C-alpha cells in the first residue's frame, strides 16, 4: 500500500516509516506540508499530523480534498489530543490519538475502509 505521512516531528515520521516499511508498505514522509505538490502525489492512505508549524492539519486536508489525485484517499488524523476525535468526525476523517500501538496503526491501515 502507498502510505503518505505528513508529520513535522522527524523522529515520529522516521519511526513510523520504518515500522510500516517493515510491513511491506511503500512510505513517503513529508515534514513540511507547504512543500508538497499534492497533485503529484499518489497514495492509498494518508497519515496526517494535526499540530504542525507553518500549516495545520485542517489546511492540509483542504488541499487534499481539492487535489484530483488525493480527493478520495482515506485520511487518518494523528494528534496527541483526544478532544480532536470530535473535530475529526466533523471533517469526515478517522482519528488516532498519540501515542499509539503499532498494532493499532496496522489495524487502521490494513482494515478495509
Amino acid at each position: 500500500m502507498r502510505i503518505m505521512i505528513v508529520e513535522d516531528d522527524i523522529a515520529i515520521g522516521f519511526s513510523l516509516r520504518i515500522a510500516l516499511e517493515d510491513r511491506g508498505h511503500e512510505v513517503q514522509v513529508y515534514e513540511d506540508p507547504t512543500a508538497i505538490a499534492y497533485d503529484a502525489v499518489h497514495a492509498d492512505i494518508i497519515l496526517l499530523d494535526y499540530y504542525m508549524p507553518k500549516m495545520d492539519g485542517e489546511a492540509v486536508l483542504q488541499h487534499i480534498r481539492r487535489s484530483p489525485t488525493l480527493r478520495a484517499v482515506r485520511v487518518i488524523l494523528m494528534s496527541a489530543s483526544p478532544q480532536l476525535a470530535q473535530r475529526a468526525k466533523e471533517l469526515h476523517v478517522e482519528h488516532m490519538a498519540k501515542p499509539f500501538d503499532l498494532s493499532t496503526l496496522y489495524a487502521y491501515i490494513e482494515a478495509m475502509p
Partner: protein
Amino acid sequence: MSFGVIMGRLTKNQIKILGYLREVESAATTDQVAKALDIAWQTAQLNLLALAQQNKIKFEKIGRQNLFMRKGQKLSTPDDYKTLFDEGPQPSWIFDRETLELLAVNRHALGLFGYSREEFLGMRFTDLLENDHDRELLEMRVYRKQGFNEVVGQYRTLGIWKFMTKSDRHIPCELVARPIHFQGRLANVVVAQPIEKRKEAPSALELRYPLAAVVPSIIWTAKPDGTITFANQLWYEYTGLSYEMTKHVNWKEVVHEEDFSKWEHLWKQLELKNFEGEFRILRVDGVYHWHIVRIIPVRNEKGEITMLAGSMIDIHKYRLEEELHQAETNLRVLLDAVKEYAIFMLDRDGNVASWNKGAERIKGWNEEEIMGKNYAIFFSAADRAQGKPEKILQAAKANGSFSEEAWRVRKDGTNFFAEVIVTAMRNKEGDFIGYAKVTRDITEKKLNESVLKQLMQNRLILDAAGEGIYGLDADGRVLFVNPTATKLLGWTEQETLGQHMHELTHYSTEEGMPYSVSACPIQGTLKTGVEMRGEEMFWKKNGSAVPVEYTSTPIMGNGELQGAVVVFRDISERKSAEEKIEQSRSQLNVILSGIKDGITAVDVHGNFIYANDAAAKILGLNSAKDMMEKKSGEVLTYFDVIGENGEIIAPQDLVTRKAFKGEIVQDVRMQFRVKATGECRWSVVSAQPVFDKQKHVDFVINIFRDITFEKNSQDKLNEQERRLRFLAEISADLASSIDYQKTLKNIASRMIPELADWCAIDMLREDEEVERIAVVHMDPKKIELAYAVQDAFPYDKNARTGLAGVLRTGKPEFVPLITKEMIDSTVMNELQREIVSKLSLHSLLIVPLIGRGKILGALTLVMTESGRMYTEKDVAFAQDVARRAAMAVDNARLYQESQQALALRDEFLSIASHELKTPVTSVKAFLQALEQRMGKPEQFDFRKNKEYMQLSIKQVDRLGAIINDLLDITRINNGKMQYDFRITSIGPVVAEVVERMSVSFPSHVIACKLQDLTARVKIDLLRFEQVLTNLISNAVKYSPTGSVIDVSTHSEHGKIFIAIKDQGSGIPEEEQKLIFTRYYRTREAVTSKVSGMGIGLYISSQFIEAHNGTLDVHSVQGKGATFVITLPRVGDK
C-alpha cells in the same frame, strides 16, 4: 399524502403564496406575470420542503451559531417528503456545503440535465456549471459562505447561473437556495428556474381580456404618448367613440377644458409618480361626468416607460351630492350666524318648519321643542283670542308680506317688543309654499322712547308696587308718586306733586346737617344722565328719618334727558339686623382667632369678610388686619399655589373658586410658596360655600390647616427610604455580574437622576493614566459633550485638584456651587470655555473608588440643568455607593485574575502533555518496530537497529529534559529551588557549552568571542549551563538554517556580560517583557505552532536572578534578538 393535502395545511405559507398570486393578477406584462407565478411556485415548493424537514429533525446545534430547529407536529412522513421533493414542480437538488458533492436530486432536474440519477449523484455541483468562471464563483461563494451559510429556513436568491446538460445544451437558470441539514451534513437545497421556460407562462393578454370585461370601471392601456392600444367595453359605451376614433383619441376633447391644465400637469409627471385625480370626462350625450382617473406607467428592466395603464371611475353622482350637501350646510351656518334676528320658516298652516340660533335666543325655544308647533304660541292670550296670528298670515299671503311692531311672548311667559316681517314664499312655478318670518327684539329701544308715557299708562301696576316710586322732571320736581311712597314718607299725592323732591324729603343729613342739592346723588342723575343706586336717609312728614335703599334712573326722550324715576324702599329693619350680626361677628372673631387653623371668608366680590392671624401667617402676610385690607385677588399674587405633585395650580382651579360654584371642597393638600421669600408652607385646605335665601352663593369659608412640619418629616423619611432602596438596587446590580465594566456602566446610569444629572466613572490603569469606563448624561444628546470634556481637558495625573487629586489622595472633592470665577480660573482656551458653558455645570462631587485600601478609580457626579446642589449628606451617600462599587470591582478583578490563571494553567497542561506525548510516540514506534524485527532474526540488521536505538535514546533525553523543566518550574513556584554556588572562571564554562551545542546543532554556526576569560563569577554550574543551553537552543529554534549565532562575553564596571545574538525574526517590542513571564508564548510561536511550553525563559530568568544577575533581551523586529546575561564579577584574589 397528496400535494394538495399538504398545501391545505400550510396556513402561513399559503398567505405568502396568495400574495404572489395577487401579484399575478395585477401584473401588466407577460414577464411580470411569469415571474410572479414562478416565485409563487418556488416558494411553495421550498416551504413544503422546510415543513417536511422539520418533522424529521428534533433539535440541532451547529458550530458557533445556535440554529435551533423545533420538533414539529407529525405532518408528513419521510416518504412524503421524498415524494414531494421528487415530484416537485421545479428542478431541484441538494448539495453538501463543504464538498459541493451532490446528495439528492429530483426528477425534473434529471430530466433537465439528461443525467441518470447515479451519474448525477457521482458529480459535484460545479460539474453542472457551463464554464470555469461560474465554477470558481460558486466555490468562492460557498467557501466564503455568501448566501450559503444563512440561518436554516431562509431562502436566498443566488441569481442566474449558466448550466450545461449532458448533451451540451446551455441553459441559464435562476437559483433559489435554502440551507438544510441533510444526512447529517450541512447542505443546501437548490431550486432552479430555467430562464427559457419562463416564456411559456400564461400570456398576460389571456388574463387581461376577461378581467377587463368584468371590471366596473373604464380601463385602457396606451403607448407612452397617450395613443390608446386597448380599452374595455365600458369605454366605448361611455364615450360613444368608435374603435378607430379611440385609437387616435385626443385627450383634450375628452377632458373638460377647465380640468385640462391639471391633466397635462399630472401627465408630465408620469415619469416621477403615478397619475391620480378627479376630472370631468365627456359622455356620449355631451354631458361631462366627474371621474377618478388613475394612470400607472409600466416599465421595462431598464426602467424606461413602455406602456401606460389607466382606469376611470364615474363618481359624478357622489360629487354632486357632496356639493349639494355643502351648499345646505353653508346656508345653515350663515343663518345660525345671525344672532340679532330670529329667522325661521312657517308652513302653509303657520307651523314652524325651520329655526335658527337667533330665534332660539330671542324667543327662548330650542329647535327640538318648537318644530311643528303653530306660531300662534308667540302671541299673548289676548292676541290669540282676537285671531291676530291668522290675520297676519292672511295679510302676508294676500299682499306678499306683512310687517308690524308689537308685543310678543317668550317661552318663559315674558313679553318683548318685536319688529316682525312675514313674507309669503312661492316656488319657481309660483305655487304658495309657506312663510318666512323675521323677528327682532326692540324692547329696549321702545322703552327708552316712552318711559313716562309707560309709567302713566301702567299706573295701576306702579301703584301696586311694594317700593316707593317718584317720577321727576328735569328740574327734580315730582310728576308722579305712587301710594307706597306716600305711605312710607307720610306726604299725600297732592302734597307731593309739583314739589321739589330733594327739598321735601332729603333736605338734611342724618346728623342734621343741611344736604345741598348739588351733593345729592339722586338729583345727580338729572345732571349726569347716569343711573344711581345707594342708601340714603329720607325725612318723613312727621320729622323722623327712615333709611332707604334707592335706585334713580334717568328718563331719556328724543335724545334729551327728560327726567328720572326714583324707586326706594325702607331698609330700617335690615339695618338693625346688620348691627346685630356685626356684634356677633366680633364675638366670633375672638373665638376664631384662638384657633390654629387659618380661616377666611371671601364674598363674591373678592373681599375678605373675615380672616384670622393663622390664615395670614400661612399665606405669608403679617396679620389678619393686613389681609382684610386687601382684595383676595391681590393676596393671591403674593404666592404660588403648588399641588402635591409639584404642579402650579392655576387660579381658576383653586378651591375657593370651586366653592363659589357651589361645590364643597374638603382636605386638599397644597403648598403655598411665598414669592418674596421662597418660604413654603404645606396646608390642608377646605372650602365651603354659604348660600343666601335665593340659593345663590353669598360667601365662601376657607379653612387652612398648616401641615408643613408633618409634611417635611414625612419627606425626610421618604428620602431616606428612597436612598436605602437605591443602595439596595445598586448592591443587587453589583452582585448580578462579574463583568465589572458593564456593572459600572449600570451604576453610572442608575445615578441619573437620583444623584446626578451627569455621571462619569474613571478607572486608574496600571500606567497611572485613567480610562473612562462610563459616561451617562440625563440628556442623551449631551453624552458626546461629556466625552468632549475629556479631550478638551486632558488628564494630568499631577493636577492638584479634580479627578487627579481624588485619585491621588483618595479624598472626595466636593464643590456645592460652581461659580463663574471658578470656571474662569480653570479654562485655558475658548474650546474649553465653550464646552463648559454648554454643559452648564452647577454642582460637582467626585468620590474615590477604594477597594482593599487601593484607589481603583473615581465616580464623578455633576449637577447641571436641574440646578440641584450637593450637600454633605450627598457626599456621604455617594461615598457609600462608591465603596460598594469598588468592592465589586475588586472582587471582579480578583475573579478575572484567578480565571486567567486557571485558563493559563489548563493551557499549559495541555501543551505540556502534547510535548510529552510527541517523543513517547516515536520511542514507542521505534521500540515496537525493533521488537517485531527480533521475531525475524534473518532480517536483523545490527547497524541499522543501533541507529534506531540511538534515536530512541535521544527522544528519551528529550523527555528527560522536559520533565526536568517541569520539576524546575514546580520548585520555583514552591520556592524550593536549591543552588550550589561556587566561584569559577566564566570563560571555560561558556566555551564548553558552545562547543557542545555546536555538535548538537550542526545546522547553525555558533561563533564564540570571549574576553576576560579568567573573570570570576559565583555560579551554580549546572543551572548556569542550563540557562546558556536554553538561550542557544532558542536562538537555533528561531533563526534560519545556516545562520550565525554569536556568543560573546565581556566585563565592565565590575559586571560580566554574556550575550547570545541570533539572526532570527526578532521579538516585537510589546512582547519583550512578557517572554520572561511564566507560560508565555510569543504570538509567532503560537501561530506557527513551534513546539515549546513557554517556561524556558521564565526558568532561565529565575535562575539568573538567584545569581543576583539579570537576563534581558534587545531586539528589533526582523533584525534578530540578543539575550544578555549580566552577572556580578567576583573580585580577583
